[in-house]
């Protein structure tokens, strides 16, 4: 069911195939001297924790969620402790009802984390950054030891082969997005520590990405904010199986196409809603989820 690949010392990327065959999610096992932690855990149809414990002899009791979507936090139920934000827990609760009907309850203990928190693994520390982008209450994790940044679906390249887009500031199930300005301000936090990481591990890749993607995403966002770059977003169709009805066929990827715009810079592409460019109230992001 699962396959894994070692990407750095004590660090593995783990894939679980998606039911529709597209957009295979990636999760990461990060192991320190005392504990291992899973950053995201795919759909978790089978016991992903048991699989992880075949890769390392350290206990893997904890998981950390970059966001609450079912293809990244579905396996929370196999773990004792899950680190996430309150908003991500809400999203997780709304999403999970349509996956898993095997009766295994999610009784993991949720611990809320936010900017500036750290998760200690023994001689290896994950730093937490909040990043409003792909889903409400998203997080990024920085590992200074192996110089990796885990971004989930928030920052990643466009990958046509697997129909994945690392920078959609909205998600099919949600109507609204965080404002583009809010995203830029949050991405700036990752720029501040740009000298601490070389590679970006994102939520749908096969291998880690060069960290210049963070700069590229920020350039694309800044160019939109100063009005240098604004393209209508063209509809894309994907051949996918509907998870609920089981119907196989073409499906439009973007809804409300007349409001959707895309911004490019090199390998980064941001899909955003032109109505939510700036925060509308001073200093307060109003559009959240």
């Amino acid at each position, binding site marked *: 069911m699962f396959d894994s690949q070692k990407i750095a010392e004590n660090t593995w990327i783990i894939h679980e195939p998606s039911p529709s065959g597209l957009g295979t999610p990636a999760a990461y096992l990060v192991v320190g001297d005392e504990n291992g932690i899973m950053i995201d855990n795919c759909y978790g149809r089978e016991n992903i924790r048991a699989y992880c414990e075949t890769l390392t002899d350290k206990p893997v009791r904890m998981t950390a969620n970059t966001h609450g979507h079912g293809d990244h936090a579905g396996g929370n139920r196999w773990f004792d402790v899950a680190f996430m934000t309150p908003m991500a827990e809400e999203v997780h609760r709304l999403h999970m009802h349509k996956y898993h009907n095997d009766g295994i309850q999610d009784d993991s203990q949720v611990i809320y984390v936010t900017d500036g928190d750290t998760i200690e693994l023994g001689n290896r520390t994950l730093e937490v950054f909040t990043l409003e982008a792909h889903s409400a209450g998203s997080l990024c994790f920085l590992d200074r030891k192996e110089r990796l940044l885990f971004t989930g679906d928030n920052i990643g390249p466009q990958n046509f082969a697997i129909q994945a887009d690392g920078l959609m500031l909205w998600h099919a199930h949600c109507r609204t997005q965080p404002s583009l*300005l809010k995203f*830029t*301000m*949050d991405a*700036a*936090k990752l*720029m*501040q*520590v*740009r*000298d601490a990481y070389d590679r970006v591990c994102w939520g749908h890749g096969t291998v880690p990405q060069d960290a*210049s993607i963070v*700069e*590229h995403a*920020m*350039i694309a966002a*800044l*160019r939109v*904010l*100063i009005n240098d770059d604004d393209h209508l977003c063209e509809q894309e169709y994907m051949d996918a199986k509907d998870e609920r009805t089981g119907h196989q066929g073409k499906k439009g990827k973007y809804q409300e196409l007349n409001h959707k715009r895309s911004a490019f810079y*090199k390998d980064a592409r941001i899909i955003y809603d032109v109505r939510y460019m700036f*925060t509308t109230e*001073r*200093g*307060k992001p109003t559009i959240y989820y």
Partner: protein
Amino acid sequence: MEKQNFCAELIAPDTWCIREPRHDTLDGGWATGYLVVGSKYGIMVDTGFGKTNLREFAQTLTNKPVRMCICTHGHGDHAGGACYFKTAFMTERAEQVMFEQKRRGLNFTNKPIEQLQILHVTDGSWIELGDRTLEVFVLEGHSPGSIAILDRKERILFTGDNIGDRDPEANADGGMLWYKDDEIQPSVQIVAQNTAKLIARRTDYDLVCWGHGHIPLDADIVEYFMLGCLLILDNDDDKPVPQEIDRNGNPKYKDLENTCSITIRNCRILYDKRFKHVTQEQPIGM
């Protein structure tokens, strides 16, 4: 009171822009400081050349005591007047630059600065003025140990000479990542990382007040500056800067081979293409 030649302009409630002309000429060469007054104290953000008593002049504008100043960097046109104050806030590196400039006679005053109480600030420092707080961000760029200062109450960001617009009339350039020949620029990557701190707080300010040129500026300039830095880092096609002649008839840029520029709207960044990314062997300049 000695003859004073400052001019002051109210730019926001309890906030004045005070300009002082250079001693030898009136065109260009203006040094700009800002008087920021809270409910208890006033403070000068940058202090001009220090030819005449700036503190006395600032005190005529407000009835709150103006005893402190904060210098965005140590250059003579910003820290020169610090000697008239009781307390000066600046970074450790900026203090070194200030003494170096003083030694070379670049702040036009003979008043000794040994009596001045200098308090060091760094990232996360804040200065309380009563109902108004100034927050300090280290912002390497124009000179070693530069800072930017955020006033959340009036939503103003004071950037010193680090971030500003291009104003050929005033002979001003807001994004010179080097200073003449004696200071070596920080790597563009460090500048970008420091500027990202300001982008992360972008909803806290609407105006940028800097040391020369047009004042106040729309805060979009910070985005232009950030975008410029990122594009420098991401591209290899560095464009050499066109040579200019300064008011004494001398060429303005010495090392044309390595000095490059990028322009985003009204913001021009000048940088040395040898120092883009952080490298081991890069000397730390004074």
